[in-house]
């Protein structure tokens, strides 16, 4: 054999010794080798809501076992693993896998959150995964979000300032600080779908997510349409179905406070 190969072979024992310890090459150690090389499987059951629009069946819950030792730490990792290895028909929305796009919003163990930010507990209790509550389901974990988006459009979520300006619209640091905790909303709909009031009145009540955005524009010092924006909210349902239940703030995966924003809107409405 060549010089290079010979040198490599001579270095092999040292190389093996300094890499992963269990992989010793001596024969009697082979029995230990198998057990210590493969960690014990940590199986957790995932009970996932399923519904197929192409059959006439009712929605059901299907259980999938997942070895947590061979899975990433987040619920989204488990869902993708199930879809890849066990059931390719499992359907869910996802995109960024880092908690910024809002696609993977769903109800996990009773609370609305983002699957990509939700750690899987290492214990053996089954994990329950349901779609966002009280939404029409297109398939499996995918809800129809169109009503939510139409409501967002209604509050005109853009800057309205037609005053002539020669350069940028200036804003003080204090005024900019008022937008912190409002602009970061990713419109995942976790809060709106956690609100019992929105469950019963999603046709007329705008919901915490949309109202948070409405307040984001009402509070912006550069926006000149505040009165019109407040008048657009003036009826019994759009804002006033909020009874300060506060499930919204509890569930927000970005740690925002829609309940507080709605309270501020209600205070502003007193002056309209």
């Amino acid at each position, binding site marked *: 054999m060549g010089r290079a190969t010979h040198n490599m072979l001579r270095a092999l024992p040292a190389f093996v010794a300094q890499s992963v310890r269990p992989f010793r090459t001596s024969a009697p150690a082979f029995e230990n080798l198998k057990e210590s090389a493969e960690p014990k499987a940590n199986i957790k059951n995932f009970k996932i809501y399923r519904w197929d629009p192409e059959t006439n069946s009712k929605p059901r819950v299907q259980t999938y076992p997942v070895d947590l030792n061979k899975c990433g730490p987040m619920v989204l990792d488990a869902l993708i693993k199930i879809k890849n290895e066990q059931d390719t028909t499992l359907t869910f929305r996802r995109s960024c896998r880092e908690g910024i796009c809002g696609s993977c919003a769903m109800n996990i163990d009773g609370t609305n959150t983002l699957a990509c930010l939700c750690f899987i507990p290492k214990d053996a209790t089954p994990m329950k995964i349901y779609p966002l509550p009280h939404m029409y389901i297109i398939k499996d974990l995918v809800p129809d979000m169109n009503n939510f988006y139409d409501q967002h459009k209604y509050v005109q979520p853009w800057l309205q300032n037609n005053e002539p300006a020669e350069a940028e619209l200036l804003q003080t640091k204090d005024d900019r600080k008022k937008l912190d905790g409002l602009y970061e909303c990713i419109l995942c709909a976790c809060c709106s779908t956690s609100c*019992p009031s929105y469950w019963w009145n999603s046709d007329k009540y705008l919901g915490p997510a949309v109202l948070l955005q409405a307040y984001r524009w009402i509070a912006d010092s550069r926006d000149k349409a505040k009165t019109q924006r407040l008048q657009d909210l003036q009826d019994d349902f759009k804002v006033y179905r909020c009874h300060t239940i506060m499930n919204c*703030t509890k569930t927000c995966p970005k740690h925002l406070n829609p309940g507080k924003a709605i309270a501020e809107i209600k205070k502003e409405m007193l002056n309209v």
Partner: protein
Amino acid sequence: GATLARQHMLSRQHTLMRTLVRNGLVCSQPAVAPQSTNALERFASTRADKQAAVARDFFEKNEKSGRPMSPHLTIYSPQLTSMLSITHRGTGIALTCAIYGGSIYLMSAHHGANATDFTTLVEGIKAMQLPAAVPFVAKMAVTFPMMFHSFNGVRHLAWDSGKGFEMKKLYQTGWVVLALAIGTSAPLCI
């Protein structure tokens, strides 16, 4: 120079437009607002009315499609926020029933020959020799709603002024209200 550049730009725009139309991405006709078939919607002048119509369409379409509604009450985990809120509503209803029911009873029953006043009523209940738990529960059923609704009412008033919305504050004030409600009603009912 400038005219040539402008002509070049216009020709590029024309080519782009032509490509988009040929590929079905842009309508070759100038945009026309879709005429709705509902007469009421056609006369809907305000944005709010239009939004209401859009929402109605959404619900009609989904109801017709046979899509299921995802579960809500059956799967959503109870939180202090929602539990205290529903208790506030429940105690409010209980208090209304107690006040109306109690008043109607006292006003209507036992007049004339069978006149009974409150003391005689209480003596009668004492004479029944009920196990200690029964009067306790009955008294709690009126006292606890009164105390809980009053203390949580104060919490609501603080919210109306914009105070106490942070998660930590919500939970702190929530537990305090619950403790105060039980602490002031249980000793009175024993």
